[in-house]
């Protein structure tokens, strides 16, 4: 060896593999404004479509008159439900087993529902056309309050379901009922409550909000009549699913549909489902023979494409006097709006809400969920969380604080007392899940030590005493949150979308010079897949991450995948990537053995190539193996070096974390100050710590927004009164608190690289931390539970209701 020979550390560093804080390669184009988004696409002769929308929340559509609209220069067509009926597309199936109007068919069921689609030579002409379409409505009584939807005399919303006593998920109890879903042992749970020494009961609401990605939902559809092929560029989190849905409903052969998701400016669940805009743009392109672009504006995004949450959770915990939990009972009223357009795996009408036992060892639990229809926008999607997991985490974390308050116990101590112990994993929860791994006590104690939890409680006690003496008008709250997520949907045994198992996929092709391309079934919307996927491959096959190009989003080239949402990319696609890379390495080992003239078993892997056991000088690098793969493979072996893996995960993964929020609130103004926010995440093996930190920052910012003000609110008439960023809270750097991040590592035992997924953890854990901080601040004044969102006005009102202005 001479001095030029790189050391092992240098060789490893050159790979920029797993564990490296590799800079995001996609940022080179994003930070220079060189990303390529749907709206950047301009095809020759492209037309623009835009919607006439209903100003009413519930009304009969008596007449649509497009005479004047068609006279507007540039307007080419006005598509209505009657047009769509000729191609049997006036209604479309939802991922939740319901059907949804593409364009108003006889009536409208929510404000801003799509009524007609105006196609014009440019967006301005389309808008002028919209102003000239005259729609005659006959307003009907509205149902906005979910608690009144199932009143005997409540207006009938879904006339199309008249007489249908069974829906996609079993019996319907009422004309505005969607489904009832129950899990757990009711008798055992009721018995636990009868015997309980202490019980709590609270209706905990998770308000309606919206993922509101900065780039709204949009598409360009182009139908080639000669070839009979439909190309769709769109903001799709799951492009292959869109292709299959289009094939099923438009009856175009699937190989003649090309779906391309270019760069996406944030999804957060908003871009999983299929929306009327996609169908109308496709039909308009087929009708006109020209490409048609549809781009939502902000109001349309906030008021029409999928909302999130609107879960009303009546929660009860049974416990001993000492604070050992003995039972959990939850009933959820789930408001789905006008159509059940949840994007859950087919068999899960309430997603994975049965993770509601959280991080605690409940001996028994029972859950029932009633889905209902109201005159609001359809949904609801999983906004930066696995399906209904943030609702579940909020429910149990708020309820544990309420129990602690009733017992007079410290909330952290109550959690430590009830955690599932490290030795109990794999743990079977009372509501049916098998938690893969965890070490909750270690994470919780690390959080408590890092922030000096005991010291903060002493400070709070002093602050409260000073408040009572009239020396200060500020109150202090500590919001503890310990969440367990369930992500990585999912195993084919229980997860599918429209019958397609929720596997994911990767195809790796190595080129002769030692560089390669990886095509993956996931689709980044900002998560940094181009960076992290290459890191997995770098570690697995010893080729520098910079030499691996990652490609996603083109259904013609990427292997079939179920897309990116529910933190499934790393648990499922990440596993497929590792497995495909291992196939490459297995073939490479055969080639290396042949070239080094030894038996395969005499080789061992060493960072970036193989070496002969006991003969460290005798090596063959992966780069050289790539070359050999194209000219001198062993006799009988096919040349080339590529591999495909479709990965069906054996189980979900269960990331967890311990968060704490320290907050002061001025009772006279309701103004809060987040003094400190500490987030410890355990997402198993960490692929890129810098990206994890970025994901945690983003998720916490969204959690902050949701808990502290972000809301889709309706008035009694069904008007959305938070239809723009003027009223819908979108925090900027000015409002956003400083985040402290930390971690523990408990690998997933069943995942090839032990990774669990992290993108959504901070939203799931963050919301209860903020809400618990507000509630903890007010608790000493006699309050038990204050509903979210906790904006200044509501904080002030809470203070007023507690009589602090007396």
């Amino acid at each position, binding site marked *: 060896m001479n001095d030029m020979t790189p050391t092992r550390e240098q060789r490893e560093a050159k790979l920029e593999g797993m564990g490296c804080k590799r800079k995001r390669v996609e940022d080179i184009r994003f930070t220079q404004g060189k990303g390529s988004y749907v709206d950047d696409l301009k095809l020759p002769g492209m037309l623009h479509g835009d919607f006439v929308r209903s*100003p009413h929340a519930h009304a009969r559509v008596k007449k649509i008159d497009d005479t004047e609209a068609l006279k507007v220069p540039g307007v080419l067509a006005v598509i209505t439900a009657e047009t769509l009926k000729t191609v049997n597309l006036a209604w479309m199936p939802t991922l939740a087993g319901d059907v949804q109007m593409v364009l108003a068919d006889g009536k409208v069921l929510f*404000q*801003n529902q799509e009524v007609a689609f105006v196609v014009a030579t440019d967006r301005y002409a389309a808008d002028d056309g*919209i*102003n000239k379409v005259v729609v005659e409505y006959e307003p009907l009584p509205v149902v906005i309050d979910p608690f009144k939807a199932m009143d005997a005399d409540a207006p009938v919303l879904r006339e199309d379901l008249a007489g249908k006593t069974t829906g996609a998920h079993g019996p319907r109890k009422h004309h505005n009922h969607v489904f009832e879903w129950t899990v757990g042992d009711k008798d055992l749970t009721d018995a636990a409550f009868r015997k309980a020494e202490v019980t709590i009961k609270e209706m905990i609401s998770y308000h309606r909000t919206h993922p509101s990605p900065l780039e709204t939902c949009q598409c360009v559809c182009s139908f080639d009549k000669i070839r009979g092929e439909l190309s769709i560029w769109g903001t799709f989190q799951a492009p292959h699913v869109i292709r299959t849905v289009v094939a099923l409903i438009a009856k175009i052969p699937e190989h003649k549909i090309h779906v391309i998701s270019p760069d996406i400016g944030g999804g957060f669940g908003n871009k999983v489902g299929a929306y009327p805009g996609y169908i109308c743009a496709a039909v308009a392109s087929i009708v006109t023979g020209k490409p048609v672009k549809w781009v939502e504006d902000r109001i349309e995004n906030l*008021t029409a494409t999928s909302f999130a949450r609107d879960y009303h959770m009546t929660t009860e915990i049974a416990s001993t006097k000492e604070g050992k939990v003995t039972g959990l009972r939850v009933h959820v009223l789930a408001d789905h709006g006008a159509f059940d357009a949840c994007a859950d795996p087919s068999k899960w009408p309430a997603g994975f809400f049965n993770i509601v036992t959280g991080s605690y060892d409940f001996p028994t639990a029972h859950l029932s969920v009633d889905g209902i229809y109201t005159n609001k926008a359809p949904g609801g999607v999983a906004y930066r969380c696995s399906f209904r997991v943030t609702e579940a985490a909020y429910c149990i974390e708020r309820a544990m604080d309420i129990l602690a308050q009733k017992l007079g116990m410290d909330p952290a101590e109550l959690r430590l007392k009830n955690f599932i112990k490290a030795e109990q994993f794999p743990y079977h929860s009372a509501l049916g899940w098998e938690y893969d791994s965890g070490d909750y006590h270690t994470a919780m104690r690390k959080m408590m030590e890092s922030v000096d939890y005991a010291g903060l409680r002493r400070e709070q006690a002093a602050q409260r005493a000073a408040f009572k003496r009239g020396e200060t008008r500020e109150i202090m709250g500590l919001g503890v949150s310990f969440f367990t997520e369930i992500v990585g949907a999912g195993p084919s045994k229980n997860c599918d979308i429209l019958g397609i198992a929720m596997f994911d996929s990767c195809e790796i092709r190595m080129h002769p010079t030692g560089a390669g391309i990886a095509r993956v079934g996931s689709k980044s919307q900002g998560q940094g897949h181009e960076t992290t996927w290459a890191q997995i491959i770098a570690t697995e096959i010893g080729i520098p991450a910079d030499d691996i190009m990652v490609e996603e989003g083109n259904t013609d080239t990427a292997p079939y995948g179920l897309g990116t949402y529910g933190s499934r990319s790393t648990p499922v696609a990440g596993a497929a990537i590792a497995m495909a890379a291992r196939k490459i390495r297995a073939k490479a080992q055969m080639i290396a053995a042949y070239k080094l003239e030894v038996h395969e078993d005499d080789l061992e892997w060493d960072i970036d190539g193989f070496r002969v056991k006991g003969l460290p000088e005798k090596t063959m690098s992966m780069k050289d193996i790539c070359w050999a793969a194209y000219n001198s493979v062993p006799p009988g072996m096919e040349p080339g070096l590529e591999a495909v893996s479709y990965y069906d995960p054996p189980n979900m993964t269960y990331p967890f974390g311990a968060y704490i929020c320290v907050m002061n609130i001025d009772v006279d103004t309701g103004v809060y100050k987040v003094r400190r926010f500490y987030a410890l995440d355990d997402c198993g093996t960490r692929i890129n710590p810098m990206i994890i930190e970025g994901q945690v920052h983003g998720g916490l910012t969204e959690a902050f927004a949701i808990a502290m003000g972000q809301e889709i609110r309706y*008035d009694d008439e*069904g*008007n959305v*009164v938070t239809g723009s960023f003027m009223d819908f809270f979108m925090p900027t750097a000015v409002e956003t608190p400083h985040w402290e991040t930390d971690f523990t590592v408990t690998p997933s035992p069943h995942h090839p690289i032990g990774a669990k997924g992290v993108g959504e953890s901070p939203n799931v854990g963050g919301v209860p931390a903020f809400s618990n901080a507000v509630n903890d601040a007010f608790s000493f004044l006699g309050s038990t539970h204050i509903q979210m969102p906790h904006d200044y006005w509501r904080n002030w009102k809470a203070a007023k209701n507690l009589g602090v202005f007396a």
Partner: protein
Amino acid sequence: MQMNDSQRIPASKEAVWAALNDPEILKQCIPGCQSLDMSSPTEMTATVVFKVGPVKATFGGKVTLSDLDPPNSYQISGEGSGGVAGFAKGGAAVRLEAEGPDVTVLHYDVDVQIGGKLAQLGARLIDSTARKLAGEFFKSFGEVVGKTVAAGV
């Protein structure tokens, strides 16, 4: 949204009542009114330009007078559509009280509902805008009627 207030007008109750039923005077006083045509003694069609925050739209609609008790009170109701901008419906109970032979107090009790884009974008502005518009209407109504009477028309 509901609001109520009163306006003191230097004219007799009968003169105020006549003005309340005169489309020409109403047209002058309704803020943004482009046209007001009487189709029967109790029915009118109107076109009004209405602006709330960022939304400006021309509303076309019907105005109906009911519960007439001349010269004491009536109910004026209307509903109009501004196309994509949304819709508005509502009314006002108007009551006249003679304070003297030449002074009348006009009491009004307004109830308005607004829907569509106007409500989405203008939620926080609607109350104040509606109050402002109602105030403008009754203020200029008072002035116009006062002037008409003073001029001896």
